[in-house]
């Protein structure tokens, strides 16, 4: 993956400005996240492997 291109494109899409001072750190940490993503991709999953998050519907008396 071309991290610099991804960082530039995503930052522009989100309205984030990455300064020259910030860029080396941002590139280092994005590369670390990419390493973690590669590890995660290495585990075979099936469509039955659902995310570990569950949405709880909100009862009327708890609403705002």
């Amino acid at each position, binding site marked *: 993956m071309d991290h610099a291109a*991804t*960082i530039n494109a*995503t*930052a522009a899409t*989100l*309205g*984030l*400005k*990455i*300064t020259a001072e*910030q860029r*080396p*750190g*941002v*590139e*280092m*940490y*994005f590369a*670390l*996240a990419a390493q*973690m*993503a590669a*590890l*995660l*991709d*290495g*585990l075979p*999953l099936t469509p039955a*492997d*659902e*995310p*570990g*998050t569950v949405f*709880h519907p*909100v*009862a009327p008396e*708890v609403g705002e």
Partner: protein
Amino acid sequence: MNAGNLAMAGSIAAGVRDGSLHARNAVQASLDRIAATDGKVNAFTAVLAERALKHADAVDASPRRARMKLAGVPFAVKNLFDIAGLATLAGSKIERDARPASRDAVLVRRLEAEGAVLVGALNMDEYAYGFTTENTHYGATHNPHDLARISGGSSGGSAAAVAAGQVPLTLGSDTNGSIRVPASLCGTFGLKPTFGRLPRTGSYPFAASLDHLGPFARSVADLALAYDAMQGPDVQDPSCAQRDIETTAGLLTRGAEGLRIGVLGGWFRSKAMPEALAAVDRVAGALGTTRLVEWPEVERARAAAFMVTCGEGGALHLDDLRQRAHDFDPKTRDRFLANALVPAAWVMRAQRVRHWFARRVARSFETVDVVIAAATPCTAPGIGTEWLELDGQKMPARASMGLLTQPVSCIGLPVVSVPLWGLNPAAPHLPIGVQIVAAPWREDLCLRVAAQLEQQGLCSAPVAPGL
């Protein structure tokens, strides 16, 4: 009756209940100790003397005093808990501009309903993103057992305040290890309950699908006392389980009797330095176990916790990253910026791997009740340490402090961290923690095993001498 700050919570509460100690005296002793020591430790970011003494007087005058489980016990909370009238800083400069909290966090209210007295707010890594509490805005919190070393984090102030004898009880949060890491490095007991056990209402989030809250104390009995007082559902926290209160304090004397105990192998041993391995082996010996338990794909589970934290943490701060990135702590800013950029597919994959891992680990608890592992790879490094040599690799010191805690909190298991001493020959004055882990909702088992180890004299949480 010892009115001093060095008394345990249970002892103070017993004295206030039977009238041999005034809550005001217990609270004043805590305030005096904070004044005398915090210049060296830097655990507190706010001391609430007026509020505390007023509440202490109310406890002394209360007709319920004799029934209050935490009567007159001074406590303090990580500064991501709401305190009425104060902006909830979460370790940041940015939140100084936030509207003051209108009421206390739920857990603060629950402790105070049992007679405990809030005396202040505690230092932390900015937005809970770190394992060292080297906070640029508020200064580093120093380890009370060696002031040149880190306290751990992100709940560094919470551990240090207990280790310094400033208060017998504190609260912190744990997303990837932020209770267990500072408990290990400062030599206190710490409890990270099951995910969803304690409500987080009125606390500043980090990564909502991983955030836990829990107590620090100098004894297992105090840990259980506080934990029991905080249990119970709260509908305002969507992740809080609708479970009945399951008290633990009365179960501690059962110890490890009848429990099947294993030692986590693989990742949990390869990422531990000799002092951490020695601590685990000493606990295993005391519990009479040689059974090795291997969880599958631990490195990927740690990656899942890392990635979920990236996605949720980055998105949470997006507005401030757009408008005032320069106001973040330089230690967190570039990480949050990078995290805001990670693709959704990476984060969703992490949530699926997390669930995959949880299902496999759940099966392992069919053959054991409790497993143990080191809480940190090593004893506390010096403040400013950048690199560690671990498993033959040069590793970033700050991130590496959570290597052994992240795979456990990733799947929400309950853990008690217990402190052992004298296992690092180069620094025998330093503690290191061992995690006691059980299946979901079995905090009672973690606490029972911890209580036995404490009773055997294997682990303890003394106040740091010489402050």
